[in-house]
Each structure stands twice: as C-alpha cells, then as structure tokens.
C-alpha cells in the first residue's frame, strides 16, 4: 500500500515518530535563535559559526558596503537619476550572513532588497550603479527597475512580481541534482511574499522532490503598509514550512552570526541530499518601503525608534569590539573609506552614456522574428521624423 501515502493504510493516525519529529520542528519554528544580543554579547555560544576572525571582518565590511551603496542609491534617486530604490537599511545582516556561507557555484535567487547579497556574490558598487542607472553598461540592458542580478555571479535577476522566483529556485535545485552537481539554490523573499501562490507551490514542490534548496524569509514585519499580523494569522512564518514536510527555523535576522551559522548548516544539509529548509530571519525595515513610499502614513515613528536598538551593524560592531577584533573607530573608518570610494564610482557611472535607443528590441527572442525587425526599421523612421519635427525624446 505504500503508494497511497505515508501510511500502510491511511485510516489511522500518523505514526508516533512523525508526531515527535513535528513536535521538535514546532519548537524551532516557534522559537528564536540568536547568538549575539543587541549589546554584542554572546548569548548562545553553540550558535556562533566557527569561522576565522578575518571572516568576521569580511562580514562587517560587506554590511558596511551594503549600507553605503544603499545610501548612495537613495541620493541618486533624489537627484532623479535612479528610477526607484528599495532601501535595505536594517536588513544587512540577513543578506550578508546568508550569502557568505555559499559557494560561487551555488545559485542565489534574490529579491529586490538584498544589496549585501549582491556584493557578497561579487557584484561591485560600479555594477550595482550601472544597473540602477540603466546606463550603457547596465547588464540587464534597461529592462526593469530596482532589480539586480548577473549570471557571472550566479545571481539570478530578481523578479518585480513579488515571490515568483520561488518555484524557479526549486526547479533550478532539481536541475542541479539531476545534473549531478553538489550545488544548492538559495532564495530570498519577504514576509509579504509568503502569501502568494508561488510560496505555496514552490515549498510544496521543494518538499515533494526534496531538492537542495534553502529559503530565507526576510521577515521585516511589513509589506509596504501591511503589518505581519495582517499578512497571515500564523504565529510565525517558519511554521509554514511544516505544511510541506520541510523544517522551518526562526532566528534573529539582525544577528549576522546566527544567520551565517544556521544558513551554512542548512546549506550543508541540502548539499548532502537531506532536503530543503525554510529560515525565517526576523528583522526590521528601518527605512521606507521604497523611495516612492511615505511610511509616516501607516507606521508610528516610535516603532522605528524602538527597533533601532536591534539594528544589525551596531550590534556586530559591539561584538567585534568586545572580542578585540575591531574597534568602533576602525569600523567607522571602513565606512568612511567605502563612502569615499563610492562617491568616485558614482561620479564615474553618472557620466556613462545611455543605452542605445533601440535597446528594447534586443533579447526578446534568441533569433529576431520578422515583426521585431520590422518594428526596428519603424523606430528608425520615427527617430528621423522626430528630428524633422524638432521633437525631443519626451514627446
């Protein structure tokens, strides 16, 4: 009878060992893992990753770079040069901590709020800005705004429709195993994304096919103006994994070290063929949803001020200082330096030319069909006519 399901006959309770496993999973899914507290004190030694000091310094530097490029994107948006930016201030620890343990040949499926992850994967600030400005060097060739990615770094360009990368990441993970690779896929998404069909079908397929995948939910408490409690009535996001026969863990997403530790374990597990894990990283979006948002309409300032004490960079710095790895002052120096560097880069990218006027005809098909060729010629004619009529691009 094994074909019909987990049970020899379905007309009985689930076996005791499954009940026990689920009890354990429930504990993790409703619990909260943390290695380092807000004051930089180690609260759980066993959750500290065993990594050299140099790695800790690297984590710090990536988080700093994420914050710096974030602030530059904001600035460039205000200057009218960047169409839209989704700030990641306050969430640097998740993006960096979750991406650092991966191998270059693992695939990352990001969302739009993981600057730290893009940097860790290898994108430079210049590449980020080229993309944000959609200038001639934009690797995504002016297709969409606010998304990043580059095949070179096995960083798959994010979708703007929230969450629809999830089933893709599951399919890619299946392909990895099928092709005999020992790589994994790691996917980032937000608390809001867990409400979409994509989360459900993605996680369900992941459970059924036991793919080598790790899912990291950046639960930053808000989906634009919709608070976590309105998003779903489940007490945590992590518990949703249990619906798919997949373990779900909940941890402090503002503690880069616990993120590093737990993700590297989940990644190893996936790599060993032991199936996927959903990790709920509890964090908080300190900025607006995007540069087009006005959070004062829906979120009290006190909440943000209250949440600032959980802010991840300050916490890491306290930890580094307390452990004699880096002083506050050295840390600030790192930040100042990156700020200077990015200023130069910004100057450079701003003077790059724009994409060719007919760029949107590229990459619709592998081979250009007749109707695109025809429209390409049409645009040439239009451009000539615009010149004749003395019309600028804005018409």
């Amino acid at each position, binding site marked *: 009878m094994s074909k019909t399901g987990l049970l020899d006959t379905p007309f009985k309770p689930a076996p005791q060992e499954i009940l026990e496993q689920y009890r354990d999973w429930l504990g993790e899914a409703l619990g909260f893992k943390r290695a380092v507290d807000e004051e930089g004190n180690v609260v759980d030694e066993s959750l500290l990753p065993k990594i050299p000091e140099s790695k800790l310094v690297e984590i710090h530097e990536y988080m700093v770079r994420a914050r710096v490029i974030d602030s530059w994107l904001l600035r460039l948006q205000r200057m009218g040069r960047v*169409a839209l930016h989704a700030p990641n201030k306050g969430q640097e620890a998740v993006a960096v901590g979750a991406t650092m343990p991966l191998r270059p040949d693992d695939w990352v499926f990001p969302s739009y709020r993981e600057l730290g992850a893009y940097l860790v994967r290898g994108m430079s600030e210049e590449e980020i800005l080229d993309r944000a400005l*959609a200038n001639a060097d*934009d690797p995504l*060739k*002016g*297709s*969409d*705004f*606010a998304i990043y990615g580059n095949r070179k770094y096995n960083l798959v360009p994010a*979708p*703007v*429709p*929230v*969450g629809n990368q999830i089933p893709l990441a599951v399919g890619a993970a299946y392909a990895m195993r099928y092709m005999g690779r020992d790589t994994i896929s790691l996917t980032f998404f937000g608390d*809001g*994304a867990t*409400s*979409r*069909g*994509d989360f459900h079908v993605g996680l369900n397929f992941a459970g059924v096919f036991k793919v080598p995948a790790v899912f990291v939910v950046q639960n930053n408490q808000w*989906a*634009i*103006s*919709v608070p976590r409690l*309105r*998003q*779903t009535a489940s007490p945590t996001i992590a518990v949703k994994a249990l619906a798919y026969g997949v373990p779900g863990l909940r941890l402090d997403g503002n503690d880069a070290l616990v993120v590093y530790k737990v993700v590297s374990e989940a990644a190893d597990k996936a790599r060993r063929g032991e199936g996927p894990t959903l990790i709920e990283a509890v964090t908080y979006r300190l900025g607006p949803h995007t540069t*087009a*948002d006005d959070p004062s*309409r*829906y979120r009290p300032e006190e909440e943000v001020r209250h949440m600032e004490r959980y802010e991840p960079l300050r916490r890491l710095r306290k930890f580094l200082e307390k452990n004699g790895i880096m002083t506050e002052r050295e840390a600030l120096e790192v930040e100042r330096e990156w700020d200077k560097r990015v200023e130069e880069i910004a100057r450079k990218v701003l003077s790059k030319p*724009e*994409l060719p*006027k*007919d*760029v*949107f*005809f590229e990459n*619709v098909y592998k081979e250009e069909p007749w*109707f*695109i060729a025809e*429209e390409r010629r*049409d*645009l040439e*004619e*239009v*451009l000539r*006519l*615009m010149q004749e*009529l003395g*019309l600028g*691009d*804005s*018409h």
Partner: protein
Amino acid sequence: MPVMNMVQALNTALREEMERDSRVVVLGEDVGRRGGVFLVTEGLIDEFGPERVIDTPLSEMGIVGFAIGMALYGMRPVAEIQFIDFIYEAFDHIVNNAAWYRFRSGGMYEVPLVIRGPCCGGIKGGMHHSQSNEPYFQHTPGLYVVMPSGPRDAKGLLKSSIRADDTVVFLEPKSIYRTIKEEVPEDDYTIPLGEGRIVREGSDVTLVSWGAMLHVSMEAAKLAEEKHGWSIEVIDLRTIHPWDRDLVVKSLEKTGRLVVVHEARKILGPASEISAYISENYIDLLRGPIKRVASYDTPFPLAHERLYMPNLAKVYRAISEVMEW
C-alpha cells in the same frame, strides 16, 4: 464645480458609491491607512472603517478570488490591483470565475465586481509598472474593459462600473493621475459603459484612442491641422470592450479614414480587432488602409519608454499616411 485630478475624482467616486450602497467595499494591498500607493483610496478607511476598506495579504489571486466570493454573495467589491502588471496570478479567477460565472451557472449567479488599478507607462516604471494589458481582458467574453482619459470621465465611468452587474476591469493610466485637472460635477452622474465620446470633431480622419494616448492623439490632431489643414475627428473610446462600434462607424461615414492609437502592444492589441472588424464589415466606408499606432511588440522597457510607446511623431505619421494614401 470643483477642479480635480483623476486621483481625486476616483476617490470621490468610491466615496460616493460607498455612501450610497453599503454593499460596496474596497479591498487590496495597502488600500487602508496607506490609501493605496497612488492615494486613490486615501481617507476611505477613516470614513468607512477596516471592514469596508480592507487591507489584504499580498496575493492578487487571493484579492480577486475573495472579491468574487463577496460578489457572488451579493456585495459589490472594488478590488485594487496595486499595479495592473501584477494581475496575472489572478488570471484563472478573472477568466474562469469573474468573467464566466454567469454563463457557467446558467445565469443563476453573477459577479458584480470592479477590478481596478493603475496601468500604462510614461513614468519610467519599467517592465512591471507600465503595462497596458487590456488585450488579455478584451479577448475574454463576460468582461467590460474601461479606461478613462481624464477626471470627469473617471468619476462617471467608475460609478457605472460599480453599478454594473458584470465584472469590469477598470484601468487607470497612472501617468495622467495628477497631470490633468478638470471641473468635475459634484452630482451623482454616471457615464454608460460601452459609449465613446467625440472629443474633437473633424471630417478627414477618424482617430480612435483612449486613456493617456488620447492626449497624444489630440496633440497629433492639432499638429496635423496646423501643418496641413487636415480636419481630424478624435474619439475617446472610454470603454475598450465592448467598443462603441456605432460611434466609430458614424465617424467613418464622414471621414473614410481610420487610425487607432493605443499603448498596448500592436500584435493582437485592441486596434487589431477594430481594424479587422471594420474592414470585414464596413470596407465600403474606407478610402484606404486602417493604421494602428501601438507600442512595439517587446516587453515594456525601462529604457526609452517614450520611443517604445506611441508618441506624437508616430501618431502624426499615421495621420499623414492615411491622408496621403
């Protein structure tokens, strides 16, 4: 008469309809405190409370499916899709349920639902904040597809849509949300679905358009008149489906020349239907080929959107072509 932009006019229509009929509710992502990302639902939650102005979880499938259930039960929900580009998750519900419940149930049930949201380009929104996807809906029997070109129409059309007993996909060109201000009557007027409007009379060419493209068409009509003395009749279709055939035919009886301008892509865009229909049934009226001016058949780009979409030069050229044929 107060002067309003389109956001204010839509907001007014929603408020008035909610006051008039307790079955009308608004739902969607961020429609409550946030008032929607373009503020179309601003303040409604204060007046009508969270039971009638419902912030939903982040799922278009959920929003539309849930709203259909309300409508089946007798309510008149207005579901906001934050950007119409995100509607595809709800496609099964729109086709199989919203559009076809009346048919499927032998007329026992109906889905008086409005699915509204910002559409179209012109704000550097890129692929997923710029789409004009009305063709998918126009091809789906059972739906009305509406797109206003200004505040006055927006208010009257939204009211009609809310009162309609079928599902209406109500598309709001976001680039003109705040750029056009008009006097908007304070009284409870409606604009019937399915009726276009002659915005500019003329005798040489019939120029059919709607939404933000209406304004490009008007500019082009003026330019053509200035340059050549051609007299262009401009029709604002307002309802894309079912389109106002009689109005178009009547105009063609005068002009014999037809240009259709829209932001949706050309291949199987609404202009293809109008063109095929008119040539099939009214070829006698035509002095030459019908011209379609539409966006190119690629995804909507972030870069150079003004070259991708219809613009003044393209519409002007089409007018010249039909005049000089």
